[in-house]
């Protein structure tokens, strides 16, 4: 039986004294019948092309098939993932992330410490986002069809950061919030899947929400997505105590022009 060896989940001490679990990059090809990482499914170019078309059609037919959106992202995003990885490499914090390969999972989060943080901090607001929208970081689909284990990690990191972007941008998980985040991500990452989502998402908005997107929210999302520092290069796990205002300023992201979250709390409101 070829199973995952215990060493696969090995950890090592970083220069900052943190222990990180390396879930990617420990594998070599000969160990896993051609698989580069545990969830990898090797595919030919023809298979990727058919997967891309098929997943695109399936996602259009049924918007709730998140697995198809994920497959579409993986089969169309190769060149863009290279650019994203290079941006991360050129950023000191991003290169640390590529080296240590942290994962954002419930098992890696210190929930009690985060819930004790003051309102307006990244950690506290992220936790509030998860609770109010009944989502968990553990539901993100594993990457399967990216034939490069480092790029697969970049894609996985993008998925795990997505909910943090909702928090950072102050966007809920309703349709308008999702479209706004998609516009931001399209401008920020260039992933074809995000561009497609940004283009098609508005089709499902009501007239009033479409107006809101067209008048202010869309332009804000595109402008800030385009000029913000690479959001994948932020080691969020070490910044839970930082306030959202401070982090937005550091990333060069303006506050949203309209508030879509009734319960949003900023440290500035306490002053």
């Amino acid at each position, binding site marked *: *039986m*070829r199973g995952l060896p215990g060493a696969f989940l090995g950890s090592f001490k970083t220069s900052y004294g943190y222990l990180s679990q390396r879930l990617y990059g420990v594998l070599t090809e000969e160990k896993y*019948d051609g698989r580069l990482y545990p969830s990898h*499914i090797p595919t*030919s170019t*023809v*298979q990727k092309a*058919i*997967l891309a078309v*098929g*997943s695109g*059609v*399936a996602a259009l037919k049924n918007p709730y*098939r998140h*697995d*198809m959106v994920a*497959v579409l992202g993986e089969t169309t995003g190769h060149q863009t993932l290279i650019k994203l990885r290079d941006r991360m490499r050129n950023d000191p914090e991003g290169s640390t992330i590529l080296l240590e390969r942290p994962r954002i999972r419930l098992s890696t989060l210190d929930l009690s410490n985060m819930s004790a943080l003051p309102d307006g901090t990244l950690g506290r607001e992220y936790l509030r986002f998860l609770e109010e929208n009944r989502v968990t970081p553990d539901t993100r689909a594993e990457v*399967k069809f990216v034939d490069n284990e480092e790029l697969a990690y970049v894609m996985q990191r993008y998925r795990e950061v997505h909910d943090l972007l909702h928090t950072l941008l102050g966007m809920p998980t309703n349709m308008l919030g999702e479209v706004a985040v998609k516009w931001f991500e399209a401008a920020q990452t260039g992933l074809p899947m995000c561009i497609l989502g940004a283009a098609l998402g508005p089709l499902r908005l009501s007239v009033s929400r479409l107006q809101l997107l067209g008048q202010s929210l869309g332009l804000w999302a595109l402008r800030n997505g385009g000029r913000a520092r690479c959001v994948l290069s932020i080691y969020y796990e070490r910044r839970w105590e930082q306030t959202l205002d401070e982090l937005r300023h550091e990333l060069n992201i303006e506050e949203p022009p309209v508030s879509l979250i009734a319960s949003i709390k900023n440290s500035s409101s306490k002053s």
Partner: protein
Amino acid sequence: SDSTEGRSTHFGFQTVPEEEKAEKVYKVFESVAKKYDVMNDAMSLGIHRLWKDTLLHIMNPQPGLRLLDTAGGTGDISFRFLEYTRSMYDRQQRLRAKSQQTPSWKDIAGHYVSDEEGPPQSRAVVCDINKEMLKVGKQRAEDAGITTGLSWVAGDAEELPFDDDQFDMYTIAFGIRNVTHIEQALQEAFRVLKPGGRFMCLEFSKVTNPLLARLYDAYSFQMIPVLGEVIAGDWKSYQYLVESIRKFPDQEIFKEMIEDAGFFRVQYFNLTGGIVAIHSGFKL
């Protein structure tokens, strides 16, 4: 008896300990149960329906028989069996009516008496190791308005929960390939069949034409897992399916295995160039 410690068996191209295979197979089919029919149509371009129709045609069951439909969780074979035997009965009635243009009073009386009994009740027992598949099958029977003649039993083909000498017909369609011990399943089939009972198996087999074999291989390994991912959201189950097809014995070897289990007059029929084969044998 031999110790099973350390023994291994195939699961697709992986070699896994025997005790793991049954569990793995269960998970494979549990995950595909709901999308099963859609995937069957997509994989075979709908031809699987013709294959199953052909199985019933070769079987040619008479009304009143008892069928054990093994690994038949979604009910495809049993539905066809009941439909076939009902249409056979109707045909017999029409032939009888046609041959009695001027019936005598005795014939008329006999006709009235026999009609009160109605058609002989054919019965199908659907047996599957996967309760999820059985649920899908039950729902389909309900949707189709089939209220009599069907029962649903969770069970393992290698250890059938039935007494000896119970059934006139035993079918296994696209299921024998997933059994850990094929010989054991064949012996169980032999045990539960009545003397005179018939074993029939519909299974993927070896394509005999070399050119078709290469096209078929390319289609199987390149397309079917992709369809599985897009339609059922499940690459690995369909990867397993195409790999297990390659691992299954070819037509002649499987024929010998059926004979070794005690069946007589074993023969097989290739369909679509050997992509699938129907094997048949009788218990004397």
